[in-house]
């Protein structure tokens, strides 16, 4: 049965977040919660949850309008509506009796064949299902989301002995394809996969910091970035998720774990933690946590708690030698307390992970994925062991008197992963290697790269044959900044397809970095400007314009598939593509004004022509220019692909993929679809108001400067932008061509790149990653 309507029972942080994310797929959600005693408005709890969703940052909703898909209701009056729902997600209090009472209500009203799942993180499925009717047990499973549901990729599915297989498949497919989750099958064991190992990681890091007398800064510097774990480290992470969650997790672990479990052996109550929670120091949501910001005479100062005394003191850079060590191996060998800390925490955590396969998951791949997706580790525990070296880890465990689990012993002298004939393999529990299987329909460039050689490659980009006649242009410069090498490879890619005699039909622009592209390599422009290499800068701009123009008018489709940020020159690549297949988490925008420039590779041209030609826009010559001007002058970046549609950075014909792992396959399918009888875009001309439009756009800027919302130099940049967008010296009775707009872009860009304040902005942004407001 397809899932066309979902109910979420319980509208707390997780329930609301799950409801929002279901709404992000365009599917209606019924959000039910209790009627508070004496409430006049019986839906008040769920209604307030929806209001909260609209205010939360980062936004649980990909578009504000998605809130309209969530219907609030209550558990007294609206249970009958459950009969319309195909999937009912229970997110009520983590108390067995409360959950059972809820299930009884659900069971009375839900329709035959609907699926019920619990978002429990602490109660075993066998306890939840116990005593419930057969029908319920067949349709019941656990779907464990991570907070916040929109952003955390992991979804653990636990099914019971009686759960019907097609219910599991339905939910798995829905969560994978529609919600975009990384679905992992976990077993019905305490904490499932991620929280079981994550719990050990956090607990061992906490205990060891007390025991070894490390400061929280030292602990976080070690058990964070060097191992590809969140930069916050463990103490920073606890501040983020809530310190009060710790004892709750510990209590449930103590209740459910088998005696003798390593977690229970290392666990100790720390009076400081209990005192912090009792006093309201529960982290960022409370008065403060292990860190806090305090107002002093010198402004806001970051403080950290002294684990030994419990007193706050100004936060200090970690002093231990080991904390400056970035390489995992070197850090693990360091002699100081920091090295000791790393050995103990990592030793306990990795050994624990290795001891739990196959108890908690069938294979190590599931464990690694769960930790990457659920705890944003860059590497899962087994990938980390491979990096350190299996034998090194075994030696480390022995030296620290930690028991070496059998799976680790089996891996001795080998690694957990290897590549054979281009195929990634993992060490199965029987000690043999098995291929890492991707889900049907998943296509990863990483896999293609493992088994093939690029069609072409330079320092910043490569071309790959991704099958079925599609060439993939991959960026791999630093932060995927656009540079002459990328432009050259784009041209080469276009040539490769064009001259392939039909062997290639389309070009897909795609990569698997965190960000599609952060924009043009402005460092290069800065360098050239500093030595007055103006012809180099001018050629670079013209070459970019020409390459993008060639992409737009190629006789075959160019499809761009961004994920993460596609800014400035990266965004201009999308604007010149026949179609865009965007990952839902795409953050798109033209941000050039931040460094004192205007988009110079056709970004102004594309936004103006799109907005002017938009049949849905308001009448008159000025409104489309206003929109383009506001977006570009304010360097607006969409907070999702859905928001980019409002900006017309994505057109109605562009598409969105929810699951990151399916982006390349979707882009490829889109490209092949377009390739059938492909007709390239035709150049368009627009009537622009010229100086009148520029004057209109400039009026608003003056006020912003007075209001202190823009600097005088912002106004200089904005005025140049206004002149480009309004068509230069044209008049509304005349037609302006795309080439004329490109020429205007060049004129404005070349004027601004010669301005010292623009160069100061570029320099500052390169150094600090932040814009300079000069």
């Amino acid at each position, binding site marked *: 049965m397809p899932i066309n309507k979902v109910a979420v029972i319980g509208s707390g942080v997780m329930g609301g977040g799950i409801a929002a994310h279901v709404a992000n797929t365009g599917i209606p959600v019924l959000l039910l919660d209790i009627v508070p005693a004496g409430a006049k408005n019986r839906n008040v709890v769920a209604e307030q949850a929806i209001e909260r969703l609209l205010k939360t940052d980062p936004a649980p909703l990909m578009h504000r309008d998605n809130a309209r898909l969530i219907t609030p209701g209550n558990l007294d009056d609206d249970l009958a509506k459950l009969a319309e729902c195909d999937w009912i997600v229970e997110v009520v209090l983590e108390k067995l009796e409360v959950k059972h009472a809820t299930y009884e209500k659900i069971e009375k009203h839900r329709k035959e064949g609907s699926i019920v799942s619990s978002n429990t993180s602490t109660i075993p499925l066998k306890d939840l299902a116990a005593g419930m009717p057969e029908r319920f047990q067949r349709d019941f499973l656990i779907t464990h989301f991570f907070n916040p549901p929109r952003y955390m990729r992991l979804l653990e599915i636990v099914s019971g002995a009686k759960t019907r297989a097609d219910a599991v498949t339905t939910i798995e497919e829905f969560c994978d394809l529609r919600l975009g989750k990384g679905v992992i099958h976990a077993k019905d064991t305490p904490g499932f996969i991620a929280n079981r190992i994550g719990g050990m990681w956090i607990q061992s890091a906490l205990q060891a910091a007390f025991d070894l007398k490390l400061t929280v800064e030292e602990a976080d510097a070690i058990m964070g970035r060097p191992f590809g774990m969140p930069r916050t480290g463990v103490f920073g992470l606890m501040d983020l998720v809530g310190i009060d969650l710790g004892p709750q997790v510990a209590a449930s672990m103590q209740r459910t774990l088998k005696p003798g479990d390593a977690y229970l052996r290392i666990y100790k109550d720390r009076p400081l933690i209990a005192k912090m929670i009792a006093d309201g120091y529960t982290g960022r949501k409370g008065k403060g946590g292990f860190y806090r910001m305090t107002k002093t005479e010198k402004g806001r100062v970051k403080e950290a708690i002294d684990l030994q005394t419990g007193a706050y003191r100004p936060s200090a850079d970690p002093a231990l030698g080991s904390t400056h060590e970035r390489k995992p191996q070197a850090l693990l060998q360091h002699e100081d307390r920091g090295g000791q800390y790393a050995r103990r925490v990592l030793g306990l955590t990795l050994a624990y992970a290795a001891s739990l396969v196959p108890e908690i998951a069938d294979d190590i791949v599931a464990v690694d994925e769960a930790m990457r997706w659920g705890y944003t580790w860059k590497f899962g525990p087994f990938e980390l062991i491979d990096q350190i070296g299996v034998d090194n880890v075994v030696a480390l465990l022995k030296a620290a008197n930690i028991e070496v689990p059998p799976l680790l012993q089996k891996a001795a002298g080998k690694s957990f992963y290897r590549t054979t004939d281009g195929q990634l393999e993992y060490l199965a529990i029987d000690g043999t290697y098995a291929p890492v299987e991707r889900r049907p329909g998943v296509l990863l460039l990483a896999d293609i790269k493992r088994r093939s050689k690029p069609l072409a490659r330079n320092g910043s980009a490569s071309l790959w044959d991704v099958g079925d006649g599609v060439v993939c242009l991959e960026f791999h410069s630093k932060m995927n900044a656009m540079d002459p090498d990328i432009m050259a490879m784009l041209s080469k890619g276009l040539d490769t397809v064009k001259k392939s005699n039909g062997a290639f039909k389309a070009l897909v622009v795609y990569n698997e970095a965190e960000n599609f592209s952060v924009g043009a390599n402005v460092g290069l422009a800065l360098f050239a400007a500093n030595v007055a290499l103006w012809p180099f800068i001018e050629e670079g701009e013209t070459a970019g314009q020409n390459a993008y123009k060639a992409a737009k008018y190629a006789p075959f489709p160019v499809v761009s598939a961004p994920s993460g940020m596609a800014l400035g020159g990266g965004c201009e690549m999308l604007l010149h593509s026949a179609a865009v297949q965007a990952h839902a988490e795409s953050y798109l925008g033209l941000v050039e004004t931040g460094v004192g420039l205007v988009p110079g590779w056709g970004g102004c041209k594309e936004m103006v022509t799109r907005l002017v030609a938009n049949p849905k826009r308001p009448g*008159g010559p000025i409104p489309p220019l206003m929109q383009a001007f506001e977006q570009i002058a304010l360097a607006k970046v969409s907070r999702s692909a859905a928001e980019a549609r409002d900006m017309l950075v994505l057109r109605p014909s562009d598409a969105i993929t929810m699951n990151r792992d399916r982006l390349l396959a979707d882009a490829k399918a889109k490209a092949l679809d377009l390739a059938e009888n492909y007709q390239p875009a035709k150049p368009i001309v627009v009537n622009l*108001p010229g100086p009148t439009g520029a004057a*209109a756009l400039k*009026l608003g800027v*003056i006020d912003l400067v*007075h209001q202190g919302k823009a600097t005088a130099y912002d106004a200089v940049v904005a005025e140049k932008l206004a002149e480009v967008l309004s068509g230069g010296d044209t008049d509304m009775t005349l037609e302006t061509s795309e080439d004329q707009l490109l020429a205007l872009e060049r004129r404005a860009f070349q004027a601004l790149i010669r301005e010292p304040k623009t160069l100061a902005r570029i320099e500052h942004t390169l150094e600090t990653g932040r814009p300079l407001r000069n």
Partner: protein
Amino acid sequence: MKNVVIAGYARSPFHFAKKGALARVRPDELAAQVVAALVERSRIDPKDIEDVIMGCAIPEGEQGLNIGRIVGFLAHLPLNVAGATVNRFCGSSMQAIHMAAGAIQLDAGEAFICAGVESMTRVPMTGFNPSPHPGLAKEYPQAYISMGQTAENVARKYQVTREQQQELAVKSHKKAAAAQVAGKLKDEIVAIKAKDGTIDQDGCIRPDTTQETLSGLQPAFDAEGTVTAGTASPLTDGAAAVLVTTEDYAKRNNLPILARLKSIAVAGCAPEIMGIGPVPAAQKALKRAGLAIKDIDVVEINEAFASQAIACMRELGIDEGKANLDGGAIALGHPLGATGARITGKAASLLKREGKRYALATQCIGGGQGIATILESA
């Protein structure tokens, strides 16, 4: 010279643009209900009306297509009644009154509806397609200066402090609230029928406004400035109308005469201090009436901004106790095109209510102008 009188005054409730109760009412519909009510209340025979002169600051969108004529249709006036739209920005509907008076002197009609409307919800203050003259914008940018900047300029030039501005705002709200409670606004207000009910009360008045609440606000137009959202008139939706006739016609037909027009004037000033426009305009009007400011008993001076209202009162020597007896635009609101008709109609009604002899209604106008009307009891 003929005697020209104000023989009726009515207005809609005034409400905040966008969030207020009139946001979903079209401006032509709003104005038509006010005009129809004015005709009905004054009991004028509508076929005697020469023209509907409709003031509007941004006459486009739903306020376009000659809204003066459209309102005639919507108010079911006889087809022989003509309709025109007039634009002098904030002075539009006072200008409508002046034009009617001029026409009467030329024997070009005996009775006129002089009205004004602005839906600042539905037609933005800049219009939908602001298209300034690029050469002028460059050479003489003050021509297009934003109103907030002019308020700051006036505050600086005439040394009006933030506290003084706030004091005026607090008093404006107190006076308006007291008038509302005492039912003194009831007679002038026409209940507006909208899709979701009837709107019969003003919506902008905030009786609990204090120096303290106002001093918490950030400057709205200049980071270093003194003018805040609390000392500026709000963006407002509303309509107002007065009936202007010859004194003979009014008497012949037993119309309720509120006041007689004594003199009128407009005057230009520097656009960057447009708020001071009432000073030269009122001075001209006083001179034409042969009066001095001390002779004026009742003043309606538009509070576009507290800074300019204070500066004008100081420069003209207006006794604060005579001004804006039932509150001004900071409390009531300022639907641009409607304000001129409101303050002129209000000044006329106040002459009658207070039993006084002379009234001055005056306002500033974007682009650097002032407009003034002197009334005397009839």
